[in-house]
Every structure is written in structure tokens, then in C-alpha cells.
């Protein structure tokens, strides 16, 4: 594409993205991350299907500090994508396009993703 002399707006390196725009690109990034998360899930399932010892070779890594940090990130990505996906589904049926509502649901998505992530570790700790 040839460079145009026209001013471009918004310029992504200067313009402060609204929360909804941040969530929009985050939805893509978490989507790609989660595809790799699914690959990991299948690896664990395949290890479990192979033998108890293959499975046991993986588990300590997931329980280690680096495994737990990775899992917290993955589960938070999952619930962020999950909640924002539901927000998209609500948009798809035609609701929630008012600016105030869009901003409110964006904050709600982030809050709910944090709650669900914390709840996961609470359940894991209790179980």
C-alpha cells in the first residue's frame, strides 16, 4: 500500500485506546493464547491416556511455582475471553451498544474474570 499524505487518526502509538478497544485486541490475543492452552490440555490428556507414569512426569511441573504462574495466566485469559465472548454474544443479538453500557460491561468483564480466576484457586485449595 502506498503512503498517503492524509493525517491518520487515531494513531495507535499516540492515541489512548478506550477500554473497549483494549478488550477487543485482548480478546484476540487471549484467543490465540487459549489455542495453545488447548494444545497443552490435549498433551495432559494424551499423557494420562498413555500411562500413569507419563502423566506423573507432567504434574509436578504444573504444580511448581512456574507452572502455577503459567496456569493462573492461562485461566485468567480463559475467563477474560469467556466473559468478553458473552459480551460479544449480547452485542450479536443487538443489545448493549450505548457508550455507558459498553464501558460498564467492559469493567464487568474484567471484574468477573478476576472473580472466576480467584474462585478456581479457592475451589482447588478446598478440594
Amino acid at each position, binding site marked *: 500500500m502506498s503512503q498517503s499524505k492524509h493525517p491518520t487518526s487515531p494513531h495507535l502509538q499516540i492515541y489512548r485506546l478506550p477500554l473497549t478497544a483494549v478488550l477487543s485486541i485482548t480478546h484476540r490475543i487471549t484467543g490465540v493464547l487459549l489455542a495453545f492452552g488447548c494444545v497443552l490440555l490435549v498433551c495432559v490428556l494424551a499423557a494420562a491416556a498413555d500411562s500413569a507414569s507419563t502423566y506423573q512426569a507432567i*504434574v509436578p511441573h504444573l504444580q511448581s511455582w512456574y507452572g502455577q504462574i503459567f496456569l493462573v495466566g492461562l*485461566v485468567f485469559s480463559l475467563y477474560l475471553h469467556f466473559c468478553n465472548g458473552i459480551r460479544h454474544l449480547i452485542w450479536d443479538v443487538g443489545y448493549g451498544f450505548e457508550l455507558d453500557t459498553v464501558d460498564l460491561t467492559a469493567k464487568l468483564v474484567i471484574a468477573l474474570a478476576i472473580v472466576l480466576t480467584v474462585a478456581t484457586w479457592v475451589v482447588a485449595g478446598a478440594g
Partner: protein
Amino acid sequence: MGDLRSPLSRAKGLGSAKEGTGHFWHQRLTSLLLVPLVLWLGFSLASMPVDHATLVGWIAQPLVTVALVLLISAVFYHAQLGLQVVIEDYVASHAKRTVTLLLSNLVCLLFGLTGVVSVLKIAFGA
């Protein structure tokens, strides 16, 4: 403009890619299916001990087996559709895009199948 299209193609409304709104619709259908399944999987896995016997015993329950096969199929189809959009948006060269798309589809298919086969192998105790 519209004169160039046959009445049949206009009635079918599938456009030049022959898929119409199929991609969009399947992305939404799989996401709807995944809403309950993901919550169920996340909190089920979190609530159980991590040892092999517990996991295998859980997977081998018929309803769990079915739900897991459904989840793995839906999630890899959903991932394939999502990755396709990302690749189409960001890989500019036609040749690279085609190869990346084929690879992405292949990887989704392979891991989806591996997941389903693993679950079934555990379920049938082979």
C-alpha cells in the same frame, strides 16, 4: 451490478466464498456450546485431586466422556475459526497466508483428534 449474479446464487446468498455467514454463525454456535462446558471443565478439574487414578476414573464416567468429546471438538473448531480470522487479518502475502491457514487447520485437526482419542482410550480402558 446485481445483474451479473444468477437468480439462484442471489437466492442462496452464499457469496463468492460459497460460505455465506457460515463462519460467523459457527463461531457463535460453538461459543454458546462452550459457555456451560468450559465452566464445568474448569471447576471440575480445580475441585479434584491431581492423581492419575482420580482423573482417569472421572474421565471414564459415561457423561463425562461425552461432555469431554463434545468440548474438545467444539473448542478446536472454535479455535480453528478464530485463528483463521487472525491469520487472514495479519498475514498479508497470499502464499504465506494460504500455507499458514493450512498449517493452522491441520494442527487444530490433529490436536482435536488426539484429545478425542485420548479421552476415548481412557473411557474404554484400552
